[in-house]
């Protein structure tokens, strides 16, 4: 893989995949830190009471804030440096499950996504 320029996000050449390496961890630090803070139930309450105010503490970019407010999981991980394990904590806080997140990233409805699974009762 060629070296990235400063600020550029890596492309490992795997379709539909945004490897969480230094290029994403650097720009996503504040975003992932916000998500990590939601492991505390008190912070989940605070977040839901005042989302904009809560976000303001983490030095996020406008793109990151907009993607959070739109629950745009793909942009958060592809372009904003979000790591799935951290972003999932944000998703859970705002009421989205992992499979709902995944369906959206695949560009499908939840029902469409479930139809692609071998045994959808195991969820």
């Amino acid at each position: 893989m060629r070296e990235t320029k400063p600020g550029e996000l890596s492309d490992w050449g795997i379709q539909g995949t945004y490897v969480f390496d230094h290029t994403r961890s650097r720009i996503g630090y504040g975003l992932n830190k916000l998500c990590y803070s939601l492991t505390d139930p008190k912070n989940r309450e605070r977040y839901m009471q005042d989302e904009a105010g809560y976000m303001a503490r983490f030095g996020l970019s406008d793109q990151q804030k907009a993607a959070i407010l739109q629950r745009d999981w793909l942009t958060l991980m592809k372009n904003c440096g979000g790591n799935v394990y951290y972003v999932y904590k944000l998703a859970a806080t705002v009421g989205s499950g992992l499979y709902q997140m995944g369906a959206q990233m695949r560009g499908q409805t939840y029902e469409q996504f479930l139809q692609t699974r071998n045994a959808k009762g195991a969820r």
Partner: protein
Amino acid sequence: MAKIVAGLGSSHVPSIGPAYDTKRFDEPDWKPLFDGYKSVKQWLREEIKPDVVVFVYNDHGSDFALDRVPTFAIGVRDEYQQADEGFGLRPLPAVKGHADLSWFIAKELIYDEFDMTICQEMRVDHGLMVPLPLLFSHEPDWDIKVVPVLVNVVQHPLPTAQRCYRLGASIRKAIEAYPEDLKVAIIGTGGMSHQLHGERFGHLNTEFDTQWLDLLERDPGRLAGMTHREIMEAAGAEAVELIMWLVMRGAMTSKVLRTHRNYYAPMTTGMGLIAMVDAA
């Protein structure tokens, strides 16, 4: 002297947690998974009878944040609380540790040039809490003590598969040097094939998983030679967790007797289980 009495590989898919807690063991879409664990749990309890399990897993941003990311870490306490992963805690007792063995292994590993981060305060997430009750009893309390060993499989650069395999060999040496008579099992967790982000979310590769289980038993050196990219391309970006199974395998003899094997891929992850003992 302590000795290794069993090696296990297991997925740690988080959705198994609530299914276990609500006892959905006999539902048709869950049964193939839970049935696979039943016989292994019984085998561990009745035949192997381990005192301690060295539990190789990764934290998923539940207790360890990105402010510091240890490549390899070890817990050295007598008790570990659960981490809240964003939706509360499961109804399970605190995990029992074995601080004496943990500290001993930490020292031996570091003198063997594996520079572990030593953790006196850490909480454990689904990486540990999902397989643990599938394999050991917790009513009314755990019948097993745990030495948690953590591997960074979240933020690249990750340790190589080869490095994980060698870490296993070093853990074996440490255990065999421990002066007390202890029966120690070791488990590597994670995967199997899965991808949880991007348009490729939901990628499964049953053929890869099947071959992984075959080679883990018979030719683990080939798996240890794989790059992260090769694993991610074939089996999904998050399948790179499988390198943790190689820590377990490195702790076993080169030839093993495989006693159990199960595989099921209902939703987004290949759920594998393998158990083995040293070949005589």
